[in-house]
């Protein structure tokens, strides 16, 4: 499986948790950190398990997540 990385825009995140619930590999979790708006933001807790499926980003209502995926060799 390719490796993936998600970058979460902390100031857009509203801590709704939909990404955590959408992720099939339990990569994401609440970080305990508050952003400037007072929301508890999400971060990659199990970075090694991310495959770059982008389910989190698809579900994020604030479009706070960018997803990168390793190029799979041909």
């Amino acid at each position, binding site marked *: 499986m390719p490796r993936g*990385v998600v970058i979460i825009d902390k100031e857009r995140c*509203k801590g709704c948790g939909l990404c955590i*619930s959408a992720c099939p590999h339990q990569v994401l979790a609440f970080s305990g950190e508050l952003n400037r708006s007072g929301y508890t933001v999400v971060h990659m807790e199990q970075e*090694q398990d991310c495959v770059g499926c982008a389910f989190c980003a*698809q579900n994020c*209502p604030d*479009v706070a*997540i960018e997803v*990168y995926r390793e190029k799979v060799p041909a």
Partner: protein
Amino acid sequence: MPVSVEKMVKVFGRPKSLTDARFTYCPGCHHGTLTRIIAQVIDELEIAERTVGIAPVGCAVFAYRWFHCDAIQAAHGRASAVASGAKRADPNLIVFAYQGDGDFASIGTAESIHAANRGENITVFFVNNQVYGMTGGEMAPTSLIAQKTSTTPEGRDPALSGYPIRFSEMIAQLDAPVYVTRQALYDTKRILEATKAVKKAFAYQLEEKGYSLVEVLATCPTNWRMAPTDANKHVAEVVTTVYPLGDLVDRG
């Protein structure tokens, strides 16, 4: 970061047709998801320079802030009529109306039906979350029986307030509409289906096929008094039993 993203492919990013503005929607609100999907489709179809969005009154009143295209903010309920006027004024524009359940199915009932009946070549998004969010959680025509809202504190009683209205089914009865579909956004599979539906609706307008209605079952975590994940489950398990998902009309 374990691996530098420089060597990676970006598989998901913010659509170009979204402005940088931060959404004012509540945490977990599906308005944001649908807005992203629409912007993404506008990008894919490369129609941003021809598109005019019509914003409603309701939580989505600021829709004109999120899309990087021309926009008109309409009076409550009238977006389908405003869209009709704009499209007739310049048929080369790609015009979409974005409306909530009060805007589309209560005060806008006549305009919603007649734009569909005239077969206006527009795309209408009907965001159905069974409640009036912006004004504090009042009953919508689409509210479920026994649903507690600020104007039905004991739960919606059909004897007093009628039944949940299946508006898409009513629109589907008309001869003119070319695409009437009901979608939801409660999980990734549904989100991807909805994305296809949105793209089809815009494609039909581009092909001048006629009127499309995309009803989207959405959540309102705040006024449903649910966490966003529970709200999603509520749509999946309860709301879809009242409002079945799928294409009601596809004559494209």
